[in-house]
């Protein structure tokens, strides 16, 4: 009986999993077209790099099905803040102003804050609108499949790793903070009170400190109720869907992050609607970098066409004024003769 249910589940997923490769092929061909344009322009202009459309960030991502992800089961979280403590320890962050055991922090909504640099993840408390019971949301970088922050960074200090995590390189960062403006989740934090080397602070999924050493990210490893699962994203989606199907009364039928903003590698399942916990709801499924891509692809066209267009206007107006001058001189001569 259970096995049948499983089969049914996978069948149910199939339309979705078939749909996404389809979409990606469409994307590739369009991008290939744009890239062709850019290459043409590049042949004509030395600094075409300026306007070259995004180098198929998404295309590469779609080719990384084995990337890691995290799944947070918000129905399990009971607000112990051990993940915050584990994050602090794993990343060698500053000692906290109030101890991680202190529950009074739930009185306000917190975010990752580089002023104090205590942790790259925070847990906030909300109330279940039906029962009034407390529910908790863990906040950290969602490691988007096509991160707006990485596409925004003018020096590529933020990059999507093929393994999944969105990584920050402090050695390149100029401190423009466009990543903060770009991030739809208000995740990156900036060290405003550092004059010498202010940096962006955000979760790296413990990539260099743990994942690359074969360890599970600190928050997932320390969580006492296994609310956080680390694994391949594709596996996590299966796991999440299975949980939802098995417990339709416990979970709402929504995996947040599966398609939001084109997908994030940190996924969530919940017992109450995500907007009740301040998750952005009007997200759409288009990856945010798509919104600037069209503009960037128009850049080489302007660079190529404007000189001819305005050079032409210049020659036209010059020629016209010469003709006009010649005309007046002729009239003058005629006038003198008569």
């Amino acid at each position, binding site marked *: 009986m259970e096995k049948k249910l499983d089969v049914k589940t996978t069948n149910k997923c199939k339309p979705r999993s078939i749909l996404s490769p389809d979409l990606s092929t469409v994307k590739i061909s369009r991008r290939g077209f744009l890239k062709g344009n850019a290459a043409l322009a590049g042949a004509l202009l030395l*600094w075409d*790099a*300026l*306007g070259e459309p*995004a*180098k198929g*960030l998404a295309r590469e991502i779609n080719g990384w099905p084995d990337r890691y992800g995290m799944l947070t089961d918000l129905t399990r979280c009971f607000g112990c803040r051990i993940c915050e403590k584990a994050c602090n320890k794993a990343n060698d962050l500053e000692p906290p102003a109030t101890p991680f055991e202190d529950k009074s922090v739930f009185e306000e909504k917190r*975010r*990752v*804050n*580089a*002023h104090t640099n205590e942790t790259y993840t925070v847990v906030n408390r909300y109330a279940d609108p039906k029962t009034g019971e407390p529910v908790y949301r863990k906040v950290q970088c969602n490691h988007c499949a096509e991160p*707006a922050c*990485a*596409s*925004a960074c*003018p*020096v*590529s200090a933020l990059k999507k790793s093929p393994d999944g995590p969105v990584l920050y390189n402090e050695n*390149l*960062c*100029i*401190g*423009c*903070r*466009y990543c*903060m*403006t*770009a991030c*739809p989740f*208000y995740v990156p*934090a*900036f*060290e*405003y*009170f*550092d*004059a010498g080397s*202010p940096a962006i602070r955000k979760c790296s999924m413990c990539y260099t400190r743990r994942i690359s050493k074969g360890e599970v990210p600190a928050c997932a490893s320390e969580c006492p109720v296994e609310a956080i699962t680390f694994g391949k994203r594709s596996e996590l989606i299966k796991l999440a869907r299975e949980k939802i199907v098995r417990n339709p009364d416990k979970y709402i039928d929504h995996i947040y992050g599966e398609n939001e903003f084109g997908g994030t590698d940190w996924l969530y399942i919940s017992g109450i609607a995500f907007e009740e916990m301040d998750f*952005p709801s009007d*997200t759409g499924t288009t990856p*945010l*970098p798509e*919104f*600037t891509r069209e*503009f*960037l692809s128009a*850049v080489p066209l*302007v*660079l190529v066409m*404007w*000189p001819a267009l*305005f*050079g032409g*206007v*210049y020659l036209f*107006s*010059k020629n*016209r*004024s010469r003709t006009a001058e010649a005309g007046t001189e002729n009239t003058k001569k005629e006038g003198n003769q008569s």
Partner: protein
Amino acid sequence: MSEYTKQIGAARKGVPEEATQELTMPQYLKKLATPFNIVAGIIVLVGLGLIVVRYTMGLGAVTSASQDQPWGLFLNIGLFSGVPLSASGFVLGTVVFIFGLKHYEPVVKNAVLLGFLGYLFAVIFLLIDLGRPWRLPYPMAVSFGTTSVLFLVAWHVALYLSCQFLEFVPSLFEWAGWKVLRRWTIKLTIGLTIFGIMLSTLHQSALGALFLLAPGKLHPLWYTPYLPVLFLNSAIAGGLCLVIFVTYLTRRFLKEQADAEYLASIDKITLGLGKGVSLVLITYFAVKIIALAHGNHWSLLNTTYGYWYLVEILGFVLLPGILFALGSRSKNVGLVQFTALLTIIGVVINRINVSLIALNWQLPEREFFDLREFLIVIGVITIEVLVYRWIVSHMPILRRHPDYENEHE
């Protein structure tokens, strides 16, 4: 602003440049101590003091240091408002050198200077705002973020600043008396102007495109795929209006630095440009309405943000568009000059709306204004005004240099 400028005029009136050099030091200092200079000096000192605090204690010591709203007044005013107003150089260059409308030539050098200073000070604001300003050249030399609109802005502002500098140097060389260099740079005019059009088209619109990345954060009344077009369009209006308004100020307060040709041309030029801006603003208004219809956001007009949006597009776009048309038709120079100021304010309001007020509109708590930040902004703008006054008082900007009286480019 006009109060200060009034006092500039009072201070300079009837003091020929040569006289300065013959004054002894105490006399010179006494002459400098005009009410305007004293007020300006205090503003600059306060600003510089706060800038020192910023570089020693971090951005957080002089700004509201918001993690949610990272871009404050330095960028809202210094970059997002300063750059469109500095379109003056490229717009007037196009009108005179490309379209060949030679009767606008007397104001071109001033327009180019205003553009050059505007970009120079936009970069100065960037140096204050960037977390690590010494890495300003990184996007050009160290690491290329080719998917970023800001990468494009960085390159274009750098290139265009150089371009504007080359367009400005003939005046500098005339002042310095370097004739050969001047002749060479004059020859570059057409090339530089066209290069300037390319760069300006792209980076003015790119400043709008920066916000395309944040559809969920910018209020739907301001978020539209037309943002790049709207930013370029309003920059053209802003640049033209800056020329109209500063030309008015120079006639009023820096008259002794101008020659008769410049002064006599102002009325005709003002009316002509006014007619032009009228067309630009009406076009801009139309695109704004198309954007509204495209997003189908009519119902949002009846909200607080909607009322503020209507103030912006009716009071600072449609109204000046009509006033410019009326003013240039009835040859009312004063009305056109007033409307230019109205439009300049409108461009600044629009940029502040997009980059501050309508951005992150869904956040529960927000801070728009920080006094320390504001004092730095005012201090830097005052330095810009003083630098402008110094250049106009020394170099042949509002006049032809006697050596090149009869030269027509």
